[in-house]
């Protein structure tokens, strides 16, 4: 398993933990900044208002 995949999975686990303790849901995306540079970003949402509460950005990795 690559470092990027490990980070992604761990981010998802952290997200699941946060969702379990707050009225929030999380979605993780790969963001592509060009030149083969990507990062995993998890977006935290308030499920009642639809507002974005915050983000968690992983380290850069090769796309």
């Amino acid at each position, binding site marked *: 398993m690559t470092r990027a995949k490990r*980070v992604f999975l*761990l*981010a998802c686990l*952290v997200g699941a*933990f*946060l969702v379990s*303790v*707050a009225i*929030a*849901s999380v*979605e993780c*995306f*790969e*963001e*592509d*900044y*060009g030149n083969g*540079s*990507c*990062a995993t*970003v998890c977006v*935290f*949402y*308030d*499920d*009642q*208002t*639809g*507002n*974005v*509460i*915050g*983000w*968690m*950005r*992983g*380290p*850069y990795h090769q*796309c």
Partner: protein
Amino acid sequence: MPSTRLLQVFFLVLASGAALARTAEGEKGALTPIPFGSEVEAADGPQFVAADAKNRPYLFLASLSQVFPVLGDGSFGEPIALAAIPEPDAVVRAAAMEGDARIWVLLARGRLWRATVDEVKRMPDLAFRPDSLAVSGAGIAVGVLPFGTGKGALAAPPRAGRSAPLLFGLSGDRWEPRLFGEAVPGREEVEGVSYVELNQRSSLELAAGAKGRTWVANRYFYLARSVSPAGKVLVTLRGDATIRQKADDESLDEIAGRIAGERERVGPRMAALANTGVNAILGLAEARDGRLYLVGQERGGRFLDRFDPVRLRVERVPLALEYAGRLTMAAGPEGLYLAGFGAQSGRWWLPWETLETAAWKPAPSIAIE
């Protein structure tokens, strides 16, 4: 049936009277929206209100994958069951009706789906992350954030530093950029606070307009534009461009702290970023007469703005609404309908009679271009 119609008129008069009475009690001249559809209050998950091509309002409850007609007395009719997205845990972040209550476009997990009563089909991927959507007579419009998905296809992908598409329209099976916004960020631009700013400056709320136009409003500051199907900006309503930030918010600090606490597990360079931006525009809808209704908020609370495209005027009335999150709105035959994002957050309507007799005043500092 005549008796049903009489009952609807009775409830309408009753509700209008109640609204007027409550208005008198609340903030001077403030409109108080009336709750509707309480019989499915127990439903969870997101909700979206929309009107069909015949101006009839419907409420889509995403967790049930059901569309409820909203009747004249504020109750629901028999629901229409849509095919569900084949990802049970996916939260629908945006939904828009394609003129017919049996056809909806949904945004979930960064992907777009077209749901009907028979099937749900994934739509072509976008090159940028979708965040909002609307369906006008000219088709589907999608608001995007300036972050590449590494998917989709663009004839000429914008490079870092160039303007990124803000709005896409679907042409056949291909997404075409209609409106441009912030510069595409490179690695150096997405560090720290600028990532938050990029999100805040690019987040939109969309609404369908007449003649295939789309209303494109910025979520975190007052800017609303009417955009033609070809991407031409026809009207701009420009207010305060400042993005208001919460000074301190315990819940944000708590979440940021929890993320930071897990940083060692996920990597030393993991960055936790709290969104302190306050929504300036909560939702908007165009009525059949061409007027735009827009719910916004400022330090004093929520307000309802009305833009008259004939008289070229923006008028404002305070809104006695506690809810401060994202809204979907629809103009129906009886009034204006509002739905908070979560089905538990509330849904309300404002009768046209109440809106027509409200104490509208010129909206301060809104320039019409």
